[in-house]
């Protein structure tokens, strides 16, 4: 079952999402609730800021020695009995996974959460080759049944109401019509997926952290789905972006303390599984994927984004994400972090995303590895305009703005004209053609500009 990728520009997709005001408010509130849980638990740790600083420094060290750490990790993983593969891009990643499955005559696989495989379009690729993939994270299974992509990296179906999930389960899993109780629906999914786990010979998982020093990798889940899949399968394939390396095992302490607290406000995920060697009679594969990361690493202004540990805190706090929904970002990783990662891969296709922000800086403030997210959003806007990828309307209005701001005389005239228009003929600007009036009322325009007011008042006080 494949989902259609949204390629509508962020603002247009957000406009569709915004049609249902009650749903937008609900979405906004749900994510803010998670942000508040994150605040509460992070404030209860005295050394929180110290941990963020350590995490940031460790990740800076990783990026500055990445080629050495990758080779160290590879050597140790091979010693541990793991087969290591390298994929330059999404196509090679998909082909490697396909080849492994073919070697074992496997045409059905379970998969736990992996945003990398979303990025690479693995499900669609395998399905086109006749291989069935079942996503086992509950949220991911729900969006898979709905033929949609996840809308959030940690909470894949945060955009869905329980009634809609009940309807999907009724159709696909045979639950009672109209049933929407989360406990009932979860139990139905548990039953359905248990049977799946017991009958699949291959399991694919993501990787949260890969330790160069030991050649082990860590996978974090609350549901236990990565473990149910991996331990019951003959073949375990773990896919990771090359930036997921950390130098030493002890550094896991810093990252595991930060990850779940930042993501959902929990002290740690239920399971933090450390995979070092395959089980007897089992094969374990790791696919190290570049897909643009090694180029991204060379961009000084933007490389910090590769420090990301995929907690999703920047999404939960973002006023634009909360009110526009994850699908409007048309990428596997949505929200502020997605908006600074994706232009590295395809600047033209993602030129709209760095503009989907108020630049309020909240994302930067909550980021557990101190990525300068809002600064990068601002910098991307400049690069995108310079490279000629800015949306046409924005480009035209920026040109007019540049002309107006370059001359004080024109500026005064334009201000006067705008105030007169807003007071006397508001319909000229307050119409469908002007995006500034979408979902917004303009304040009443004053009779004079600040400059005029200042001149008059200074005279009075002199």
């Amino acid at each position, binding site marked *: 079952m494949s989902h259609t990728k949204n390629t509508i520009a962020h603002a247009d997709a957000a406009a569709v999402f915004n049609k249902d005001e009650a749903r937008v408010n609900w979405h906004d509130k749900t994510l803010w*609730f*998670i942000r508040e849980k994150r605040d509460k638990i992070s404030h209860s740790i005295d*050394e929180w800021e*110290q941990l963020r600083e*350590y995490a940031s*420094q460790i990740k*800076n*060290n990783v*990026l*500055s020695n*990445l*080629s050495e750490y*990758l080779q160290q990790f590879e050597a140790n993983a091979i010693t541990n009995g793991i087969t290591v593969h*390298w994929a*330059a891009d999404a196509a*090679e990643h998909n082909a490697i996974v396909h080849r492994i499955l073919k070697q074992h005559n496997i045409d059905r696989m379970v998969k736990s959460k992996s945003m990398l495989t979303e990025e690479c379009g693995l499900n669609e690729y395998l399905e086109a080759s006749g291989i069935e993939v079942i996503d086992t*994270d*509950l*949220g991911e299974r729900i969006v898979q049944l709905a033929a949609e992509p996840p809308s959030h990296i940690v909470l894949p*179906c945060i955009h869905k109401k*329980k009634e809609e999930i009940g309807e999907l389960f009724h159709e696909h899993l045979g639950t009672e019509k109209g049933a929407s109780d*989360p406990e009932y629906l*979860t*139990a139905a999914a*548990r039953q359905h*997926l248990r049977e799946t*786990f*017991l009958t699949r010979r291959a399991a694919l998982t993501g990787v949260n952290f890969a330790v160069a020093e030991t050649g082990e990798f860590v996978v974090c889940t*609350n*549901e*236990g789905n990565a*473990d*149910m899949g991996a*331990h*019951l399968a003959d073949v375990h394939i773990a896919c990771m972006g*090359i930036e997921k390396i950390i130098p030493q*095992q*002890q*550094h*896991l*302490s*810093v990252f*595991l303390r930060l990850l779940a607290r930042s993501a*959902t406000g929990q*002290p*740690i995920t*239920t*399971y*933090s*599984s*450390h995979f*070092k060697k395959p*089980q007897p009679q089992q094969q374990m594969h790791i696919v*190290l994927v*570049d897909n643009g990361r*090694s*180029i991204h*690493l*060379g961009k000084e202004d933007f*490389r910090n984004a590769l420090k990301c540990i995929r907690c999703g805190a920047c999404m939960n706090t973002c006023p634009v994400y909360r009110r526009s929904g994850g699908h409007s970002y048309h990428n596997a990783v949505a929200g502020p972090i997605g908006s600074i990662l994706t232009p590295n891969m395809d600047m033209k296709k993602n030129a709209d995303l760095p503009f989907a922000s108020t630049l309020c800086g909240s994302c930067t403030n909550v980021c557990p590895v101190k990525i300068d997210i809002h600064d990068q959003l601002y910098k991307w806007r400049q690069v995108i305009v310079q490279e000629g990828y800015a949306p046409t309307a924005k480009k035209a209005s920026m040109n007019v703005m540049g002309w107006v701001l370059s001359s004080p005389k024109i500026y005064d005239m334009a201000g006067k004209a705008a105030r007169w228009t807003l007071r006397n003929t508001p319909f000229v600007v307050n119409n469908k053609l002007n995006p500034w009036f979408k979902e917004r009322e303009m304040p009443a325009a004053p009779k004079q500009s600040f400059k005029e007011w200042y001149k008059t008042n200074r005279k009075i006080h002199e």
Partner: protein
Amino acid sequence: MSSRDKILQQVKQHQPSTRALPKVEIAVEDKDWLADFKARLETLHVAVFEVSDNNSIGTIIQNNSKATDRIVTTMASLKDYAVHIDRVEEDAHQLENVELAIIPAHFGVAENGAVWVTDALIKYRVLPFIAQQLAVVISKRNILANMHQAYSRITNTNYEFAVFIAGPSKTADIEQSLVLGAHGPKSMMVFITD
């Protein structure tokens, strides 16, 4: 050139000049962390029992299960109360109908309620995940303050698979409503021994 060499060459060419690795030092208060550990477990919906001997564990297990339940343990000391698994003999899929698995843990962590379990303690990697209910036995002498202490203890120990477990399996994917028992155990008990 292979993809491996191409990727490594490109990474090498683009990686910035070396940034130093920090020395992670977090001060820990010197105290007994048992009370904090227990309090944290309760927030994770774990039933906590302080027990004096194996008989008490056996009694609690018997009171909480039916005669028909398949109960297994990897602890020889509990073989009077559960079927003892001391080595891997059958296909792990056969554990599918285990109602309760009783396993030991190396230590617990007060800050998050996690217990550290390695493959040597569970025999079958899937055991603590596939059982409908999980019970973990841990000594009160092995409660650590935080994850930094935990990894100091883990460094240089041997395992092929290991896991921190913090409560029963859970999900909140449907409208953020917490449901225990996503794919793994629906409930968890922790027995704290002397």
